[in-house]
């Protein structure tokens, strides 16, 4: 019974992209021998230890674990449904303000059981879960937050704690503010858990796992990521870049030998009467390309440009030089901003406020930008430059002026285009990637960190 569920769980993990070998699933199964199955947290830690070998997979594991193991048998669900009803009936005369107060005070006293009961009540009251309605849990969670008015809870907890402080203690206020935010995140978590538990009880784990769309950070789509997901991408960027840098550095140092050095080989063969016994090779010095990054930072593709620039600057040791330009319907050089600042994130904010990238209406105009770029900086480019163009090539029906790109191609070593849109959308609507693409050495779909990483690896 539990083993069947475990197998389904492992299938769901694999479907989300977590690699799990047979050996690991055997380990997970045998680990269940040593644990009391009613102890959810314990089961979770056993399964995590034997199945998850990369911390960036952990969030997906947690989400799916809750789906597959949080609700018990059908009989248990029956009793919990009865319990829900009992709770909401016995607190029927509690009004919204009182409920908020009760949640705030349960948080204050750290009474988790009371808090869970209150959250369950809130979900019954506000989420309006309708059986059979095919919506994801986020919708219900959103309605619960709205009904509860989380801001009011936050203020109430904050005021309760701050009142004990002397009024001039600004550090204390900041620390408390942060703690309260953490507490609130815990309440939100409880709300989401409760909704998920009810949905699993109603539809079964497979259906919920499908609507959950648990995605590994490196597979999250740049263009469609929400604020939470963008943070998640950013968090996983740092270890990823570190690993990539180590790897590229090692490749460079232990890089293979170069071509045969005829002169030295013949010279050495003298010692053996002209028989070339020892072959001599040139030492390979893989040259570092000079990168010229030209990035569209208009709304739709801004986060893609941001992550690509973050990654390239973090790897700047692998290139002889990185010059960067940003544009919308006008282009501006921002190399200096990056060079002067030692904090990339801060530099990105400055780029957004200081670079002059709007000429007319603030809609991307690739043709105009290419012309301006070629006129102003074309002289500085040479056969050692590799140009990266980041953007979706959605030109708002302006003329493409692709001929300029052809001229540019003659001057430089390579031109690569990175497009954050799915390849199936290319050349539909106002996308003219095809017109530009014929003058590029490669046009790459770059929707997520995984694709970006593999491109950068090829580049360096």
């Amino acid at each position, binding site marked *: 019974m539990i083993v069947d569920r475990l197998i389904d769980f492992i299938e769901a993990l694999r479907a989300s992209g977590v690699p799990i070998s047979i050996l690991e699933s055997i380990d997970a199964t045998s680990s269940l021998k*040593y644990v009391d199955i009613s102890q959810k947290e314990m089961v979770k830690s056993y399964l995590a230890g034997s199945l998850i070998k990369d911390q960036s997979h952990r969030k997906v594991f947690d989400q799916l674990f809750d789906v597959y193991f949080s609700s018990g048998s059908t009989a248990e669900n029956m009793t919990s449904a009865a319990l829900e009803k009992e709770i909401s009936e016995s607190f029927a005369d509690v009004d919204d303000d009182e409920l908020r107060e009760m949640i705030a005070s349960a948080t204050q006293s750290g009474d988790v059981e009371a808090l869970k009961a209150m959250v369950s009540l809130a979900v019954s009251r506000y989420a309006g879960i309708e059986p059979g309605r095919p919506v994801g849990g986020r919708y219900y969670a959103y309605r619960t937050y709205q009904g509860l008015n989380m801001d009011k809870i936050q203020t109430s907890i904050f005021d309760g704690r701050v009142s004990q402080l002397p009024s001039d*203690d600004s550090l204390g206020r900041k620390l408390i503010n942060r703690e309260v935010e953490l507490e609130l995140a815990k309440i939100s978590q409880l709300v989401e858990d409760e909704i998920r538990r009810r949905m699993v009880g109603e539809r079964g784990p497979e259906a919920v796992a499908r609507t959950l769309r648990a995605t590994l950070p490196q597979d999250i789509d740049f263009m469609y990521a929400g604020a939470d997901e963008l943070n998640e991408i950013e968090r996983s960027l740092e270890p990823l870049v570190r690993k990539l840098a180590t790897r590229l550095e090692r490749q460079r140092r232990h890089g293979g030998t170069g071509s045969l050095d005829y002169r030295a080989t013949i010279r050495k063969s003298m010692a053996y009467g002209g028989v070339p016994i020892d072959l001599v090779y040139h030492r390979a010095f893989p040259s570092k390309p000079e990168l010229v990054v030209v990035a569209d930072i208009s709304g739709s593709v801004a986060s893609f440009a941001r992550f690509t620039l973050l990654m390239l600057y973090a790897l700047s040791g692998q290139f002889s030089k990185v010059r960067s330009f940003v544009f919308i319907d006008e282009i501006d050089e921002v190399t200096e901003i990056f060079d002067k600042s030692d904090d990339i994130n801060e530099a990105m904010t400055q780029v957004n406020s200081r670079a002059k990238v709007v000429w007319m209406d603030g809609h991307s105009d690739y043709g105009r930008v290419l012309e301006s770029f070629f006129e102003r900086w074309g002289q500085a480019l040479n056969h050692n430059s590799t140009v990266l163009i980041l953007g979706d090539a959605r030109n708002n029906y302006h003329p493409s002026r692709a001929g300029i790109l052809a001229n540019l191609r003659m001057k430089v070593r390579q031109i690569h285009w990175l497009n954050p849109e799915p390849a199936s959308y290319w050349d539909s609507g106002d996308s003219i990637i095809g017109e530009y693409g014929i003058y590029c050495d490669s046009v790459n779909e770059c929707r997520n960190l995984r694709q970006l990483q593999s491109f950068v690896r090829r580049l360096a």
Partner: protein
Amino acid sequence: MAEESLNFTSQSDVEELLLKAGYLPTLEICSVLFLADRLKKPVLVEGPAGTGKTQLAKSIAQALGSRLIRLQCHEGIDEAKALYEWNYKKQLLRIQSDQLSQSWNQIEENIFSEEFLLERPLLEAIRADDPVVLLIDEIDRVEVETEALLLEVLSDYQVSIPEMGTVTANQMPLVFLTSNNTRELSEALKRRCLFLYLDYPDRDRETAIVLSRVPGISTALAESVTSFVSSIRELDLKKLPSVSETIDWASALVQFGVSEVDESIAKSTLNVLVKYRSDMVKVSKALLSS
């Protein structure tokens, strides 16, 4: 194969042992250690620097009264440094001294025997008769190719020496590998291990750690110390304060006779926690009105 020998009787036994050694474990730590003992698998411990990865192995060795054998990895480590090496100087001497009296076959048999084998940490751990804990520290520093050296030891607890045959473990050592995650470890290695991620402790656990490690500290001070440190860790810094730095800071504050962290104290002692100038500026900007 060695006979079944268990280090822990139950999961709560793991917890008690670690507590006795002064290490405050989480549920996850206890679970993975207990499981490692039952499934006879090594534990791969990963996490940021200064979260007690190495200390965990040391503490468990101390608690079990086992000998700790440590292999510190670095780039360029090879068989001769990790597994074993033939003591060729001694072999040469032997050949010279036996040259007249013995036939070549006898000499060959003699010089490839235990007497001439230099044990390196992995072989030492495998052959030990007393209980040992093997710690392979910073495994991410070796090259991918070298990782393969470890696979036989990690999965079968044995070492093959071509001239002598296979040496199998007398008893199963507890094996820990630590990694700072600077490189992707090979799938083969990860498959053979259980995985434990040690993050910075949450506030309650860190408070408990500070209370247990800093003599004479009040609960109020410990709480305000960890509250401040955990806010710093939320910032985007070059180097986040480690647990040992929290402890250093807390001890310093106790020495100064401080009862609670306030702005001026935090400002003047920030250099204990934060080691880069740009990081200090960030912390001051975010938390301290300067």
